[in-house]
């Protein structure tokens, strides 16, 4: 059997702080198959963005380091790849869409030129051909009058349209993998739905695998095949989306699901998860979630928990995985 498109194995990342190097990712492992959409889910500070930047090789060189683990794309090891080789892969084989469409495009260049620059970087060819390709992808992502709009500057687009431009740029060289980091968070709800539809359509058209980074489990249900739930720099649960919603196997997933607003239950307060993610460098011993967990026992406090493989596939990083019956979402 051939390897999945993206394999992340035992990834450990440290950041430089005033107190020295502090670990922010601890043994992160997951895979993404060809054309598959995987949700990377967690609160702020869970390590999901650090994970995606590590995959792209975009972690700040001076203040961070990968201390262990492996990231393989299509069988090729990316950890330790020389800078120039990594640059050549980015935008060509894998690419990223960011959260802030308002600030993520260069205000000083026409959008068509920005896309054409990426195309020429990876595909070569004439300026004219690259421009034609830019117009083509802009039109594919649903920019009306793409021929004319390619000549516009970013400030002449609305937020939703700019996000479409970002998607067009990321897909211009038909990468095998796109990481979308909260691509809809900064947008209006109606625009969010449009952008999600677009990402789905692009995935189907280009066969691109998508890693969808989000804190919104509703979006994951909407678009993803599988989910990887992260907490405090660790993967706590991996499961297919349906299984995750019906039978979460980690208390943190259960808590995230119960924190989702439900249209059917209008009364009462919205559920929250008590406490907050521990800061890097001050992780509690034992299970990292135990101070906020409603199911904790004494053993959770001092035993570091490994990922338990589950019979139905997937993993859970919970000591009580075999004796807990957790509540799914209705």
């Amino acid at each position, binding site marked *: 059997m051939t390897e999945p498109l993206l394999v992340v194995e035992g990834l450990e990342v440290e950041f430089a702080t005033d107190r020295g190097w502090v670990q922010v990712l601890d043994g992160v492992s997951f895979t993404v198959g060809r054309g598959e959409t995987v949700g990377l889910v967690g609160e702020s500070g869970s390590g999901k963005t650090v994970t995606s930047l590590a995959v792209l090789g*975009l972690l700040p060189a001076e203040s961070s380091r990968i201390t262990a683990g492996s990231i393989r794309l299509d069988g090729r090891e990316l950890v330790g790849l020389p800078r120039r080789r990594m640059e050549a892969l980015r935008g*060509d084989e894998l*690419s990223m869409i*960011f959260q802030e469409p308002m600030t*993520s495009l*260069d205000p*000083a260049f026409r959008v068509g030129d920005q896309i054409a620059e*990426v195309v020429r970087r990876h595909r070569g060819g004439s300026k004219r051909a690259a421009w034609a390709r830019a117009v083509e992808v802009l039109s594919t992502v649903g920019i009306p009058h793409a021929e004319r709009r390619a000549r516009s500057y970013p400030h002449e687009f609305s937020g939703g349209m700019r996000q479409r431009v970002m998607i067009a740029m990321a897909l211009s060289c038909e990468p095998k993998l796109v990481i979308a980091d909260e691509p809809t968070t900064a947008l209006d709800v109606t625009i969010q739905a449009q952008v999600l539809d677009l990402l789905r359509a692009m995935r189907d058209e280009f066969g691109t695998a998508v890693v969808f980074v989000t804190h919104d489990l509703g979006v994951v249900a909407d678009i993803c095949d599988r989910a990887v739930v992260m907490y405090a720099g660790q993967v706590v649960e991996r499961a297919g989306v349906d299984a995750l919603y019906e039978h979460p196997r980690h208390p943190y997933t259960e808590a995230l699901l119960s924190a989702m607003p439900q249209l059917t239950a209008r009364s009462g307060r919205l559920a929250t998860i008590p406490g907050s993610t521990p800061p890097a460098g001050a992780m509690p011993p034992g299970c990292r979630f135990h101070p906020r967990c409603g199911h904790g026992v004494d053993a959770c406090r001092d035993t570091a928990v490994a990922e338990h493989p589950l019979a139905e596939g997937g993993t859970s990083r919970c000591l009580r995985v075999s004796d807990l019956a957790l509540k799914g979402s209705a």
Partner: protein
Amino acid sequence: MLRYTVRRVLMMVPLLVLVSLGVFALVLMIPGDPAITIAGENATEAQIDATRERLGLNDPVLVQYAAWAGHALTGDLGSSLFSNESVTGAIAGRFPVTLALTLAAMLIALLIAVPAGVVAALRRGRWQDRGATLFASVGISLPNFWVGILLIMAFALAFPIFPAVGYTPISEGVGAWARGLVLPGITLGTAVAAEITRQLRGSLTDTLQQDFIRTARANGLSARAVVLRHGLKNAAVPVVTVIGFQVGFLLGGSVIVERVFGLPGLGDLAIRAVLQRDIPMIQGIVVVAALIVMLVNLAVDLSYGWLNPKVRQA
């Protein structure tokens, strides 16, 4: 962009009127009667009266201004009180020297400042950055007449590579012309280089932390393209502003540097005119200097429109 340009050019007209009023008021502000100054200390009452009449000093102020401004518009700035040389002619003769000196200084400044600023921004906190910052502080602090004298001692006297003083017109050979500009150019350009380095370092550091730089990197653009295309163009607005200011500084600084290096430029002419109280000459030089500064500001503003497309709508 065309509308922006036209609007910006039209905005210069009221400014020019204000400048001309200020320059004209110079005559009125000088203590004492200019007619006495001009006619000389031993002139008789009749001679002074005649002088006053000849200069139109008996007319109402507005009439005097209209006459002067009208002539100025046609390029006639009057004639020197001492040599009877036409002011326009004197300025035209000196202007190429000052222009060459200013351009040489700016060229040298940019050749130093752009690499230094980029390296400092990319190697922030390391020795390259510290070196550039040190250069910036020292360069701004050194008085340029002193730098000029040191350079003459080193590279004209001890090691006679460049001429110590004097100006060779470009018509007598480009090589000799350029050689004569090296030392004054360095002298005048050092402080400008220091200022631009400082500005570029700060501006580029900010720009490189912007989200769109991350986007460019995420799409595989080389580090070089990211910094030199996307970084520099976005970092340029405050830097170009400083460059514009520095042209004013260069015009002022050339007064001293032209003296040190014996260059027959506008600065040298200005000093002589001030010492002799040659009022038409002073007026002419101030008008021309103001015009240069305004044109430089125009160029700076137009470059904003190119660098930052949002400005064009404003």
